[in-house]
């Protein structure tokens, strides 16, 4: 069976103005237990790449600049 790309709304939002990933920070990516955050090639900022979130909060709690906001995933909101 062929594969289709599909899109989905993800619960974690990063404020690009606050994120200092270009200075070498990747704290949120380091701590996430589900390993779902990455650096966006285009913007150089952190973002949620995979919609596999336990809404647990280490990313938000440990970000040094308060750039991360965890929301409740839409399906269970």
């Amino acid at each position, binding site marked *: 069976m062929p*594969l289709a790309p599909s899109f989905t709304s993800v619960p974690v939002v990063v404020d690009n103005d606050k994120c200092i990933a270009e200075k070498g920070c990747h704290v949120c990516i*380091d701590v*996430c*237990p*589900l390993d779902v955050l*990455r650096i966006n090639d285009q913007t150089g900022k952190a973002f949620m790449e995979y919609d596999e979130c336990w809404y647990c909060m280490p990313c938000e709690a440990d970000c040094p600049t308060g750039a991360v906001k*965890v929301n409740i995933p839409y399906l269970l909101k």
Partner: protein
Amino acid sequence: MDEILDGLSEVTCDVLVIGGGTAGPMAALRAKKKNPKATVILLEKANVKRSGAISMGMDGLNNAVIPGYATPEQYTKEITIANDGIVDQKPVLKYAQNCYSIIEELDSYGIRFLKNENGDFDVKKVHHIGTYVLPMPNGDTVKKALYRQLRRARLLISNRFMATRLLTGADGRVAGVIAVNTRTAEFLLIRAKSVILCMGAAGRLGLPTSGYMFGTYENAANSGDGYAMAYHAGAKLANLECFQINPLIKDYNGPACAYVAGPFGAYTANNQGSRFIECDYWSGQMMLEFFNELQSGKGPVFLKLNHLHSDTVSEIETILHTVERPTRGLFHEGRGTNYREKMVEMHISEIGFCSGHSASGVYVDDLARTTVPGLYAAGDMASVPHNYMLGAFTNGAVAGEDAAEYAANVDFAEYDVADLARERDRVLAPTRRDDGIPPNQIEYKTRRLVNDYLQPPKVTRKYELAQQRFAEVREDMETRMVVRNAHELMRSLEAASILDCADMAAFSSLFRTESRWGLYHLRTDYPEKDNENWFCHTLLSKKDGKMAAEKKPIDPYVVPISEDEKDLYDKQRVRASA
């Protein structure tokens, strides 16, 4: 990141601890303390800083045996009764005797426990009989405090490596583990003299009713890899038919925390706001009453706090919205639920494996030894019942010490290189296809079938159908699963563990032809408890490549239970008052 690289490195150590959540860090610390010359490696799929069930801390100890409040014998008795008698008491008693010293150790790490005005521990009553719940005022700091200790002890930590299979020698001893980097797919072979499994519960077995695959009660990284690895290494697994099913906040799927709110006066209620269970401590018997109420005209079920004073509610909110599952406040806000006004809707969870509320898991004795020489297990995946956080720490410590001693007296077991080659082929197979079924669909289908067929009440014919469907999914998984990067590869390996756990859940449930533990093993075609034939453990294992089950007698009790005590947990329903 996530590009698939080809690579294999090999390292050796004396003691290898797999899983750096709760039990794992303590096991590693103790192994090193016991033998400072030993090389100890702590391997973790995520990052030890924030991994496992206690990722954001905990609000209290569920099962603390504190002098002045309870004795180890009383505790052992309560847990035996809560488990319908299916308990080897020795490890429970040992836990109860050791856990106070672990509290003191945690205290020395800077983790605080609630004290009253006299300076004594302020333990709360939540259980049916005794008093064991001890709040932790700075419970959000647990992970940080543990991590400081790991750094201080200079332990070797390997983050982002997922263990996939254990290696054993021709003599049956454990020889090491194969792990895969979750961001590069590079292999790591660790040869070890002893190995401690601390990989948590099987939390992604059933599908949450929200349909969100990661909206689980357990930390969703705990996909049951430890159970699958122990099984494939030939270890025995006990009482897996005693499922974990929890009373949770509906959709959010986190604990409603009657343990926190209960001592303040909150309770579980039906739609009329009335209590229907005597005690909010999680047990199969309590879950059965919960299930019955949900299905009845008085359902659904709620956590009731709206009768409490606003200041009391604020105090509860401060605890519940900052530790453990801190997004809970946000969830309630989104639904417009203010505890002062509305009751919180609850539901029962999907099924999982966890020894938190049962005696299920990889079978261990009172030294945390599995049935494979040199292999240990501790925490939620080991068969010591009602362990929770303090049990994970306490038995992690026991395992660490014994594993260090064992390692000091043996040489490395020789593994078979063919086993390594076979495992590399198994792991990499989905990377070698460019068309097929992605791991999330394999996983979704498995878990959806688990809900359809395995969720209690258990029906024999449904279980047999489940086994057929699982075999079809397995065929697809082995011949058609496809991944595009290292992250998906991790998910594909998890999907395989989940399917193994689903098969084990079905097999062990069919073996025990009686009903026991309330809802956890309610078999509609064998509705009665049958002590004559089934007052025993069941042990599942891999024999000649296939699943097999056997009975194991319960070790003679060291703390006797009298006739009038043994059914106390069956009396959960509030009696209608005259």
